[in-house]
């Protein structure tokens, strides 16, 4: 069936380094993708989104890249900080009326 998956379940980086979190999706009809950050005890928090007519979108310290050819999505965090430690989920809107399909999540741990 349709699925969104993550390549790495855990990622540990040094404070100040850049982080890259990857995600694969399988529904070629999806035209909207979102990255969420979830801290312990909180709900998923929107980070950045991208539509399929773009291949790159930048926010504050974060960049999302979309490669539709290989159905791959990535989240880049520049100068990773301890406050970035969380579980990151990619999600796709499979053109099915608004519901999101989430990946398993990657736990990012930032070492001081």
């Amino acid at each position, binding site marked *: 069936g349709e699925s*969104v998956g993550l390549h790495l379940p855990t990622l540990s980086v040094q404070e100040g380094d850049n982080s890259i979190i990857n995600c694969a999706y399988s529904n070629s009809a999806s035209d*909207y993708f*979102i990255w*969420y950050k979830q801290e312990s*005890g*909180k*709900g*998923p*928090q*929107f980070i950045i*989104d991208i539509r399929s007519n773009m291949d790159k979108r930048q926010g504050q310290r974060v960049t999302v890249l979309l490669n539709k050819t290989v159905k791959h999505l990535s989240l880049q965090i520049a100068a990773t900080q301890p406050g970035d430690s969380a579980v990151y*989920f990619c*999600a796709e*809107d499979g053109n*099915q*009326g*608004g*519901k*999101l*399909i*989430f*990946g*398993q*999540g990657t736990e990012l741990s930032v070492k001081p």
Partner: protein
Amino acid sequence: EAGVTQFPSHSVIEKGQTVTLRCDPISGHDNLYWYRRVMGKEIKFLLHFVKESKQDESGMPNNRFLAERTGGTYSTLKVQPAELEDSGVYFCASSQDKKGEAFFGQGTRLTVV
């Protein structure tokens, strides 16, 4: 502006009992979604309301789950009778547009013992 709020934040019940979760979406958001995350796995869609109507309930696991959104404002999700495998974190989200940023609540952690 208040975000999406969920109540209770935690609930521990015995197998066979009934639990009702509540979600108050952001005011003015017609779209309301229920998701859950079981055993640390991915967050899975349960159902989607547009105002008071069920747009999509394809993710509801079985008929022990009943969601309502009377009046198109807050929503409830009732599990009756609860089973052990229902344990997990139940999230509610709301959005103004179907294709746009969905705002999530903090979740209700349900533990069935």
